[in-house]
């Protein structure tokens, strides 16, 4: 049964580096598994926990977030905010029973088409090992979703506040 399991992965890619990197995989005619569905955002900093949770709610078996390498973000440091949010999101996902294999945050530059393909390949392989994602919390996922999203944001915000001087 699980031999035929083909995981569904949602990829959220920033427009400037990672989406271009995925395009380069195409123009270089590199083959990688068809399991990923790519959605574009302008910057990886746009990715909020709600989007990730939504994916799992809609039946994704994994979520991949990719942005420009640190220092290369088109918006200076949007990806640094992503970098800060990632561990929080990862922790929240584990708390609601989503295995770590199912969530990955990477950096792919516009010239790393090959790397992008490899990442997808690896992720498909890893997720195949843990099997299809079953909504462990059932319908509850919907209920906790907003709560979780809000708390993730707050946690990120708290961190943010610590790191910057607010106000004028």
């Amino acid at each position, binding site marked *: 049964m699980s031999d035929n399991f083909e995981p*569904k992965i*949602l990829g959220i890619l920033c*427009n*400037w*580096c990672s*989406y*271009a990197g995925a*395009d380069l*995989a*195409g*123009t270089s*005619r*590199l*083959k*990688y598994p*068809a399991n990923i*569905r*790519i*959605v*574009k*955002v*302008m*910057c990886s*900093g*746009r*990715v*909020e926990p*709600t*989007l990730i949770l*939504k*994916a799992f709610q*809609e039946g*994704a078996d994994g979520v991949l977030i990719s942005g420009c390498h640190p*220092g*290369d973000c*088109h*918006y*200076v*440091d*949007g990806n640094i*905010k992503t970098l800060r*949010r990632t561990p929080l999101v990862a922790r929240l996902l584990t708390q609601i029973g989503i295995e770590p294999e199912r969530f990955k945050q990477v950096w792919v*530059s*516009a*010239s*790393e088409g090959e790397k992008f*393909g490899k990442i997808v390949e690896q992720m498909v392989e890893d997720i195949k090992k843990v099997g299809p994602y079953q909504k462990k919390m059932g319908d509850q996922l919907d209920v906790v979703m907003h709560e979780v999203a*809000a708390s993730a*944001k*707050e946690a*990120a*915000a708290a961190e*943010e*506040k610590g*790191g*910057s*001087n*607010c*106000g*004028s």
Partner: protein
Amino acid sequence: MSDHKIGVYVCHCGSNINGVVNCAKVTEEIGKIGEVVVAKDYKYMCSDPGQEMIKNDIKEKGLDRVVIAACSPRMHEPTFRRALEGAGLNGYLLEMANIREHVSWVTKDKEEATKKALSLVKGAVKRVKLHEPIEEREVPVTNTTLVLGGGISGIQAALQVAEAGHKVYLIEQKQYIGGNMAKFDKTFPTLDCAACILTPKMVDVGQSPNIELYTSSEVIKVDGYVGNFTVTVREKPRYINHDKCTGCGDCASACIMKNRIPHEFDEGLSKRSAAYIPFPQAVPLKAVIDDGNCLFLTRKKCTLACVKACGAKAINFNQHETIHEFKVGSIILATGFDLFDAKRAPQYGYGRYANVINGLQFERMTNASGPTSGHITLADGTEPKSVAVIHCVGSRDENYNKYCSRVCCMSSVKFAHLVKDHCDAEVYEFYIDMRTFGKGYEEFYNRVQEEGVHFVRGKGAEVAQIDGRLVVIAEDTLLGQYREIPVDMVILNTALEPRVDAEKVAQTLGISRSGDGFFMESHIKLDPVTTTTDGIYLAGCCQSPKDIPDSVAQGSAAAAQSLAIIATGKVKISPISASIDSEQCAGCRICIGLCTYRAIKLNEETLRAEINEAVCKGCGTCAAGCPSGAIRVSHFNDDQLLAQIEGVLA
């Protein structure tokens, strides 16, 4: 119950998509969705008939939303937006599904590909329903240009913009302009002397009323966007008052460090003072004090002979660095290349054997105003009887750079000619294969072959010293023989590499680099001059190795881009920006800390955050961090993204 009339168009892209994705099936399936009133597949959607078809459907069937499943939106989104607008529909009521780069080109299995394509189109259909018309923002343009790098391509770009009557700030890291070309002797294929063709241009730069030249300077910060950049430049002290210095060189003769410091301009083949004139034709022709070697600057211990010698009283040790800020409409990057350091390929003995030199050193040697006054000499001052030229040192080599540096075959052939021209030596060229691709290049190669140069097809593998004599070891692939050829001098024609600071420059300007480390163009074939950042253009070797004609051509092309912006007087900037719903905003100020551009401020009266849309760049980082969900990013709002996610996973 359906509110929208959506048209879905699936492009075959010849066989690029249709060869893998079953476009007819995707079209059929998507046509079953309620609000999709038109679903069509066609050979080339981007062609005139393709676009006409879409326009007609919009008009005749009253479509209010369009989905195009085709190539990457990075390629044709602007094309199709224009098509929508041509039919009276706002361009943002379009969504593209990337079924070429993200599906047909990367998927082997046709069924899998068709399934994936269908999900992407479904996501696009769900998303497009929530699209809103957006008006593109137009902003006025500052009619000045900044050119970074004063080599031949930067000079060309600067002169063309200046000649069109517009102000240019030309920023050069070195103390003089001219770049690498200023060091060359003769240029292929016509053998004009580099100085003869370059010096007049350098002089023009120095004299143009429209060009403000900043040497010893670097860009440290770039703010703003196309049409309205603010560039911060750091100018290092030169310790010479430019207004007073006459460029006489008396300071150099007086300096007590005279003839003790290897001269960079001569690639270390001559020695200079700590106070010096970079080279006789330098622009600006002003003395420089080298703060790394000047005894006064480094140890405060010197007789200050230079100060005494300077009749113009131009030396000023109290100079400090100056920070300049320029407002410019566009930026032309022409930062050039670095030469591969042959010491990284120790098999060639560079740095170990005195008579193994690199191409640029040879250029200096043959240059009449160079360190040997144009004589080709060995380390002991005698003339060589045989010379080897090794191609592709550091190029076309898995260990260093995979790419071909493009100019080395031709410059190697030129070196052979120059050796023949200057002395009686036998010349051996070691090449992998000969790439003489330009106008008049093959003819030049033929001419040099007739001059009796020995061409050995095989990459020089090693340079050894046997019994005090240099020996080039190579496999001659034409003869199928291993050869050891004794010579007196070896010229290593080394690769052109991205500059050491390319990464830093890319980050400062917010542009990408390709896998080889050079700056990345928007499209390798159709848009080799622009970068993915609007208003930043590329010229010359900073984009990829090129010869002088190509560098000049690209310099002109970049100038044309800058002039086009100035001519229009305004530019369209991305209308994607964030806004705050003040009802929902709790005034927590988190977004303020998240915004890199300081576009968000707290309204002190209402205690709600407000976004200055003119400053906002639309990255959406604030929206992702707002605990109240009060921030909306146009074209990337939560609902649109959630709908798309739902669609692609369905």
